[in-house]
């Protein structure tokens, strides 16, 4: 169990404020944040490269914030991997073992196991300069894991890789975590969090604004920043002011745009989430059972892996997910007036 308690650190104009985080043994924690949010700084503080101005880091109850970098029980993989260019792959992986003065026999044994595990046996005598991105990433992981660290710290490990290699390395990381290794991974890419994380922390402007299990954070973003980071498109600030009885209520967006919810909620502020695939479009107002019908203008189209996202301004910004065929059939163009409809049952409410 790794605990960060009220970590503060100022570097130039940037401040990491009051970071408290608990990391369970065997969990995969992804810290999501924009560039400049303080992700790498947080990792450097954990690894011991920088000292916090205040706060504690506990590993299984033992304070480690004053331990020098070489005595911390963490293995850090730098964003650019920091492989030693003057050493071969074998020497790179042997480096941490030699620093621990292990016998040659043990070093050879561990290197052999790691080479098999990371499928790099054929690269052992090569220079890191001659390796591909994915190979370098595997070598960096093997080197970091050679001394069997308590926890693996990863700084944007997939950023520089192409899609195919990224998936391959994701598989490697997932397997490492399944084998019991605790991993803390910082990134700006929510897809990585979706595919890897058991726990997520959201870092914004030096503050950890939300944390929890991946499901909690992805389902209940506490503000638009978190929502945008977790890939939710229709996340709208509303005030519930009116009760209609019979199980529905109306939430007002932008003070005067009513959204009907299939819920009984007392008058309060909060956010509604409308799944983008739950919105359907038509050129004319249709006789539909949907309680929410908005007339707006198409402002843009965004291709997505699942179809096309149609951006609509209807007083509130809406994003509808259509198939490419759907867009073609309706003959949609930017600037078209369009009706967007969704059911009250598809709207989720998150109290503020």
């Amino acid at each position, binding site marked *: 169990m790794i605990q960060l308690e009220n970590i503060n650190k100022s570097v130039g104009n940037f401040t990491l404020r009051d970071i408290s985080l608990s990391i369970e043994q065997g969990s995969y924690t992804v810290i999501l944040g924009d560039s400049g949010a303080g992700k790498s700084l947080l990792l450097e503080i954990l*690894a011991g490269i920088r000292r916090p101005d205040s706060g504690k880091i506990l590993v299984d109850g033992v304070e480690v914030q004053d331990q020098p970098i*070489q005595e911390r029980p963490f293995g850090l993989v730098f964003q650019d991997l920091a492989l030693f260019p003057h050493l071969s792959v074998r020497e790179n992986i042997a480096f*941490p073992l030699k620093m621990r003065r292990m016998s040659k026999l043990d070093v050879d044994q561990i290197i052999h196991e790691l080479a098999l595990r990371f499928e790099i046996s054929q690269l052992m005598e090569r220079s890191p300069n001659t390796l591909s991105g994915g190979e370098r990433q595997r070598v960096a992981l093997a080197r970091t894991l050679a001394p069997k660290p308590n926890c693996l710290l990863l700084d944007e490990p997939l950023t520089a890789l192409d899609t195919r290699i990224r998936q391959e390395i994701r598989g490697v990381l997932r397997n490492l975590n399944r084998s019991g290794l605790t991993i803390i991974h910082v990134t700006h890419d929510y897809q990585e969090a979706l595919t890897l994380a058991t726990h997520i922390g959201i870092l914004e402007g030096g503050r950890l604004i939300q944390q929890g299990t991946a499901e909690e954070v992805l389902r209940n973003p506490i503000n638009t920043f978190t929502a945008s980071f977790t890939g939710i498109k229709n996340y709208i600030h509303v005030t519930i002011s009116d009760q209609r009885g019979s199980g529905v209520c109306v939430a007002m967006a932008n003070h005067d745009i009513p959204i009907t919810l299939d819920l009984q909620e007392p008058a309060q502020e909060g956010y509604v989430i409308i799944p983008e695939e739950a919105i359907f479009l038509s050129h004319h107002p249709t006789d539909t059972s949907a309680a929410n019908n908005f007339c707006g203008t198409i402002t843009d189209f965004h291709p997505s892996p699942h179809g096309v996202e149609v951006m609509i301004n209807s007083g509130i910004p809406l994003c509808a997910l259509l198939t490419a065929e759907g867009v073609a059939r309706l003959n949609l163009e930017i600037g078209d007036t369009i009706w967007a409809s969704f059911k009250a049952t598809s709207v989720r409410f998150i109290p503020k």
Partner: protein
Amino acid sequence: MSQSKLSLVFALLGGLVLLFIIAPLAGLFIKTSPVEFFETVNDQEVTGSIALTLGVSLVTTLVFAIGSVPLAYWLARTSFRGREIIQSLVDLPVVIPHSAAGIALLGMVSRDTWVGQAASAIGLDFVGHPLGIGIAMAFVSVPFLIQSARDGFANVPLRLEMAAMSLGASPWRSFLTVSLPLAARSIITGMVMMFSRGLSEFGAIVIIAYHPMVTPVLIYERFGAFGLKYSRPVAALFVLVCLIFFVLLRILANRRTHDPIRKY
């Protein structure tokens, strides 16, 4: 101006400068007859002097590397107010006249200073001694080593040192296993420069230790006493020896250290 004309003008201007460097040296060898040359090779005063010059410069370079490499690392890795001043102090010996450097050094190590007296007490004498020659050589040549080593360390990414430490290396071992090997090329280049500069030093040495005569002093002595004809073969032989050493050390430096950082 067309590309070919530009190349022609540049080749002409550059060629003139190259000629300016090569012509006097070529003249030195052309005007030295083989007989004169071989007589000089067998002249024990000359060969002894060349051996002394090479030996003192080599030992000086090795001894001063022990302190200069840490200084260069410190200059490359730390930033503080006054760093520029220390940097300028390191470069100072390069810009002051070497005779003035010799006077300054003599003022520090002559027999009537406490340094000179302390050295005398343990049987050492700087003035008129290889030790004095070494000090004079080091004073004017050590900035070349420090500058080159500092640039070498500055080119080693700090992250690599951090990575070494996060993998369990102490700061010492991180320096010895990562920083030093990666800066080795620059350090060796600096040592070759320091050694070569030491070989050619005259101004500071002639003031602090005229005897035993290093070759530049011997050349000057023969020129003053016997004229151009008698000093030229010594000069030719010494230039040849310096060139051989310079080329050999350069080859050695290039072979032993590839340049991993730039490729990285």
